């Protein structure tokens, strides 16, 4: 059987001593965490180890001996080390010895109660203790989602990573501490600490409390009865800016909560939200400074009214074209004129309202532009809402055209059934045959022919306005896509993967080092970082909008029947 010894590369230069770590008997492997140097009192060592075991819940014990001699191998030392095996009884007792500066160490085991006397092969695996301690192993995607995952099937590597990560307290004593035990591990030359990190930790507590207080005030105002009256609540639900602000408020609440993050996922989520908010606000302030310099916002407001006028004029030209002979098709004169005049009057009303509002536009825009400092996403949502408001007349025309067309289609289908002598049974939800009277049939046929010959005119108006509406929806959809991207991108995780790639591990990789015959196999274990795609997939922040659930076929069916389409539905809204 093969014995695997995981040796930290920082202990290669340590003085002679005994090895402490964890023995994983199911995998026949020993994970060495530190080296205890001479002189020591065995009772004190055992006491220290039991204390550490109590705190970390990791089964640490003395695993063997380590001898680093500058000259030739000393016989007396080797006997002494073997005798230590009787004091700290451990099965098997591992003995590693290094001579001079040689890279090739000799490794042997002492088995007292073994039945097979055969020499077992030993594999020496070097690992970087600090990187393995800080790293978080991500299981492959299919096992992460499976629920019937037994504890003993856990990956062997995760046992090793867990052992090193949980033994953090062991690495807190360095060689300048006065204690009975002298250890060598990755931090034994001095515990690392950063002043900035400590200061930030101290300052974050009062900052969090202040933020929580402010947020409770703001959410209290938002939930007050004043804002719940019918016209206002309807308005809030339709504006995407309010959704985005509510979403960001939720994020702030997550960050400012006093509870420390328990798991790695929670910690990463908090960090991602914090970095995302920071970048958002920074970009928003940049945008604001660009807009307000050289009075660009004034220019924008000045061009808004002419643009709205231009759009209205184009619509009027379009309607005149439809009222004539569009694309060479021959329309029904009377219906054409009625519909055309109806829509033209609407446009006339719309232009009058816009001109009424024009003196106030610049001031409103100036103040609304100030809210870009809340974040780039808020500014984009405001843009999307402005587009929605400016193209409100297109939305109205679409609704009129769709309703008219829908009515016509239903009428046609019902009268078509009458033609064939059938009827829709509402109780049974199916088509049944029915015998009609002669006068019913006569009226029905007349109405059918009228509706059928008026169909092209209505269909054309419906088609034109649906296309315009789809164009506006497309533009709004692209803006919302961008907002969602900024909202859900886990920037902190991506930066971590770029700069400290060992923190996010997908697995390990082994490199075979130089070998010498007769010595154990030497391998170097390095951390294999996660790919960027998996980083984004694992740490994506959830967003509030759900993408079109309608497949293309159902969308086409709805368009054909004239049902109104709402492609961008938000989570929590009633589905119709």
């Amino acid at each position, binding site marked *: 059987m093969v014995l*695997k010894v995981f040796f930290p590369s920082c202990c290669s230069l340590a003085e002679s001593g005994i090895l402490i770590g964890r023995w994983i008997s199911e995998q*026949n492997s020993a994970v060495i965490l530190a080296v205890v140097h001479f002189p020591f009192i065995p009772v004190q060592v055992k006491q220290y180890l039991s204390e550490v075991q109590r705190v970390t819940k990791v089964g640490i014990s003395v695993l063997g001996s380590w001898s680093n001699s500058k000259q030739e191998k000393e016989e007396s030392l080797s006997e002494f080390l073997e005798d230590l095996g009787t004091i700290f009884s451990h099965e098997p007792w591992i003995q590693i010895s290094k001579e001079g500066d040689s890279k090739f160490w000799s490794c042997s085991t002492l088995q007292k109660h073994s039945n097979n006397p055969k020499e077992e*092969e030993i*594999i020496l695996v070097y690992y970087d203790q600090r990187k393995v301690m800080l790293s978080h192993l991500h299981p492959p995607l299919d096992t992460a989602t499976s629920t019937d995952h037994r504890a003993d099937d856990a990956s062997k590597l995760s046992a090793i990573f867990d052992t090193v990560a949980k033994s953090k307290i062991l690495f807190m004593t360095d060689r300048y501490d006065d204690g009975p035990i002298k250890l060598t591990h990755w931090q034994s030359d001095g515990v690392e600490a950063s002043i900035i990190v400590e200061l930030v930790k101290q300052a974050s507590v009062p900052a969090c409390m202040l933020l929580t207080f402010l947020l409770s005030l703001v959410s209290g105002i938002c939930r007050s009865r004043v804002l719940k009256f019918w016209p206002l609540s309807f308005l809030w639900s339709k504006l995407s800016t309010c959704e985005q602000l509510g979403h960001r408020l939720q994020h702030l609440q997550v960050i400012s909560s006093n509870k420390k993050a328990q798991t790695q996922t929670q910690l990463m989520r908090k960090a991602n939200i914090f970095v995302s908010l920071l970048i958002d606000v920074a970009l928003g302030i940049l945008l604001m400074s660009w807009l307000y310099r050289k009075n660009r916002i004034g220019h924008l407001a000045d061009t808004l009214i002419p643009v709205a006028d231009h759009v209205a004029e184009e619509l009027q030209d379009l309607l005149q074209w439809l009222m004539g002979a569009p694309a060479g098709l021959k329309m029904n004169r009377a219906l054409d004129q009625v519909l055309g005049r109806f829509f033209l009057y609407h446009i006339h009303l719309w232009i009058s309202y816009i001109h009424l509002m024009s003196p106030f536009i610049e001031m409103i825009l100036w103040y609304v532009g100030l809210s870009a400092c809340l974040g780039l996403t808020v500014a984009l949502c405001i843009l999307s809402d402005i587009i929605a408001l400016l193209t409100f007349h297109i939305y109205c025309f679409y609704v009129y055209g769709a309703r008219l067309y829908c009515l016509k289609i239903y009428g046609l289908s019902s009268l078509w059934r009458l033609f064939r002598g059938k009827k829709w049974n509402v109780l049974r939800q199916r088509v049944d045959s029915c015998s009609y009277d002669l006068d019913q049939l006569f009226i029905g046929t007349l109405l059918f022919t009228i509706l059928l010959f008026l169909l092209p005119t209505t269909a054309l108006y419906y088609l034109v306005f649906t296309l315009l509406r789809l164009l506006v929806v497309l533009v709004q959809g692209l803006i919302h896509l961008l907002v969602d991207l900024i909202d859900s991108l886990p920037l902190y995780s991506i930066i971590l993967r770029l700069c400290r790639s060992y923190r996010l591990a997908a697995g390990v990789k082994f490199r075979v080092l130089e*070998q010498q015959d007769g010595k*154990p*196999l030497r391998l170097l274990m390095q951390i*294999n970082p996660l790919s960027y795609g998996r980083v984004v997939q694992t740490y994506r922040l959830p967003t509030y909008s759900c993408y079109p659930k309608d497949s293309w076929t159902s969308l086409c069916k709805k368009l054909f029947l004239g049902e109104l389409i709402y492609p961008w539905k938000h989570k929590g809204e009633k589905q119709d």
Partner: protein
Amino acid sequence: MEERRYRSASGAPIALRRRQHSASCRELAVRCPRLQLRSLSAVTSAVWLVAYGLFVLSENSMVLSAAIFITLIGLIIYLHFVKIDQESLLVIGSLGIQVTSSYASGKESTTFIEMGQVKDVVINEAVHMQKVIYYLCILLQDPGDPQGVSEVVPLFQSSKPRLDCLIEVYRSCQEILQQRKTAPQ
């Protein structure tokens, strides 16, 4: 360490290198056919001829600079993401199997599969268009069902060695995999 020449499924020359590091550790590396200077110059000249033709038609010198830019970027992307130089298999008995692909730009992409997840290493046949090709693959154990296979990981996908090379690799792997059956673990 020994190196032998074989042929890939499409007839290009490849080389198999075997190293035995210890009794339970073997490394098998297949070196793929190198990037040919002929094909590189042919593609570059074709792109530049087309660009020159467009330049003559449109009298816009941006077309030429764009062609140079596209050729450079395309070459970098090809070398870094597409062209695989060497595919190797490192079998460490009782630890696992490591599959590495090294690209022409020096990038290496590694996957390590633990021995507990490996059910077996087999040679499979696949019907591809009008040919039947053989490929070596690792069968992964299904944790719920001891007889089942949860995943098949194909090896040497870019170099596609022929059956004689695959048999050598298969024999080397099986010698090490047999050891874990004889060991009580």
